C-alpha cells in the first residue's frame, strides 16, 4: 500500500482511489480544485447564487460519476466539463432561449473606471451567443488553452478558435458602441 498522504497524490491517483472506495480522496480533489471551479461557474453564469448551485451540483455529479473518468484528459479538464455543463443546464432551464436577454449598457457614473469596465464587459459578455461566451470565459478569462477548452466544450479546436475570434470582435464592437467610438 502506498503510504503517501493524499495531499501528495496526483489528481488521477485521487480519482482512482475514490473509485476504489477511499473515503477521503474526493475531499482532497475538492479542496484542490474548488476555487478554480468556483471561478468557472461564476464567470459562466455571472450570478453568485446560480454559480453556487451549479458548482455544488457539479461536484456531486463528479463524485457519483468518477467511475466514468477514463483518464485520457486531465482531471481538471474533466471537472471543467462537468462544471460548465452544470451551468449550461441550469442557465438553459432558467432561460430557455439560447441567447440571454439583452442588457442595456447603462451609462454609469462611477469614480472607479475599472468598475465601469467590469460591468460593461460582463453585460456585453451576457449578450454574446452561448458558444462564444463560453469560449471566451474558458480561454481568455480562465486561461485554458484552445486544446483544453475544446475538450471541455466537446467541440473541435477550430470551433473554439472561431468562437473566440468572433466573440472578441463582437465584444469589441459592443464596447466601442458603449464608449461612443466609431
Amino acid at each position, binding site marked *: 500500500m502506498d503510504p503517501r498522504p493524499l*495531499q501528495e497524490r496526483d489528481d488521477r491517483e485521487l480519482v482512482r482511489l475514490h473509485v476504489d*472506495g477511499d*473515503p*477521503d480522496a*474526493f*475531499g482532497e480533489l*475538492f*479542496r*484542490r*480544485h*474548488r*476555487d*478554480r*471551479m*468556483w*471561478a468557472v461557474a*461564476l*464567470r459562466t453564469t455571472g450570478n453568485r*447564487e446560480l454559480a*453556487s*448551485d451549479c*458548482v*455544488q*451540483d457539479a*461536484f*456531486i455529479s463528479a*463524485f*457519483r460519476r468518477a467511475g466514468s473518468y477514463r483518464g485520457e484528459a486531465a482531471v*481538471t479538464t474533466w471537472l471543467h466539463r462537468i462544471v460548465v455543463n452544470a451551468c449550461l443546464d441550469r442557465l438553459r432551464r432558467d432561460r430557455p432561449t439560447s441567447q440571454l436577454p439583452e442588457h442595456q449598457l447603462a451609462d454609469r457614473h462611477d469614480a472607479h473606471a475599472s468598475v465601469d*469596465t*467590469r460591468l460593461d*464587459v460582463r453585460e456585453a459578455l451576457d449578450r454574446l451567443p452561448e458558444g462564444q461566451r463560453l469560449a*471566451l470565459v474558458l*480561454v*481568455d*478569462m*480562465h*486561461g*485554458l*488553452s*484552445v486544446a483544453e477548452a475544446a475538450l471541455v466544450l466537446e467541440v473541435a479546436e477550430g470551433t473554439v*478558435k472561431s468562437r*473566440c475570434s468572433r*466573440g*472578441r*470582435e463582437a*465584444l*469589441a464592437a459592443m464596447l466601442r458602441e458603449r464608449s461612443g467610438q466609431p
Partner: protein
Amino acid sequence: MVSTPPVPPRGPDDPDAEDPTGIRALLSGLGDPGPMPADLVDRINASIAAEQAARQHHGAPVVPLHRRVPGWQKYGLVAAAVAGLAVGVPALLGTGPQDVMASLTRSSDQSAGAASSAQAIQPPIASFTPPAPGTQGTPGSGARATSALGRVTMVATGTGYTSSELAEQARTTMLGPFDGSSGAPGAPVKGAMGAGGLRECLTAMGVPSWMPVVGDVATFDGERAVVAVVSSDTDQSVYAVPTWCDATHAKALAGPVRIR
C-alpha cells in the same frame, strides 16, 4: 499547501494569444473572483460527506440535498432524508450487532446484551431520558449493568458543525427525526466513519465502552469529521474527531462538551 490557481500562466509565444481586438487582454485583466466562499465550501463538504455515507451502504439511492442552505440549521432538516436512506437508527442502547430490522420488531427482552424495543422509530437521543440508577434492561436504557458494549449508531445528517456552536448544533441536529427504515449496516469503513472505529477512537480517549454513541459523518469547521454524542447515565456530551481516528490514532478536534 495551496489549491490550483484559477488562471494558469501563459507563455509569450502562445499562438492562442494573438488577438488584434485587445479583448483577450481586457478579459484576462478583469481580476480573479477570489476563493470559493466559506459557506459554500461547508455546504459542499457536507454534501460530499453525505454521499460518502450513502456510498458505504452499497449504493443506496441518494436524495439530493436542497441547493440553497443559507444557515447550518437547515442541514439537519434537509438531510434527514439522506440520513434515513443512508443509515437506520434502531434502539440506541444495549443491543448487540443484530439486524436492524429485527431489532425494530423484537417485542421482548432477550439476551442480557439486548434492550429490545417495540418502537418503530426511536426518538432522537437528545430527548432520551436517562434511566434511574440501577435500572436494567428497559427499552432505551443505558444502564451499564445490562450492556457490556453500548450501541454505536452512525448517521449522516450533512450538518456543517463549527467549533463555536458545536453543542447547540449537536443538540438541535440530534433532535431531528431519524427515519429508521434503512436496512443492515453497510460495508466496513475505516476509522471513525464506521461504528467499530468510532467506538475504538472514543475508547482510546477514555469514553467508557458501555456508553451508547451516535456518530454523525459530517464536517467540523469546514473539514470532514465525525461528530459523536455520547450518553452517560445523567447527561450527554459531544466530541468532534477526525475521520481517521481509531484505537491507535485517537484525537479529539473538540470536546467533550456537555450538551445536556
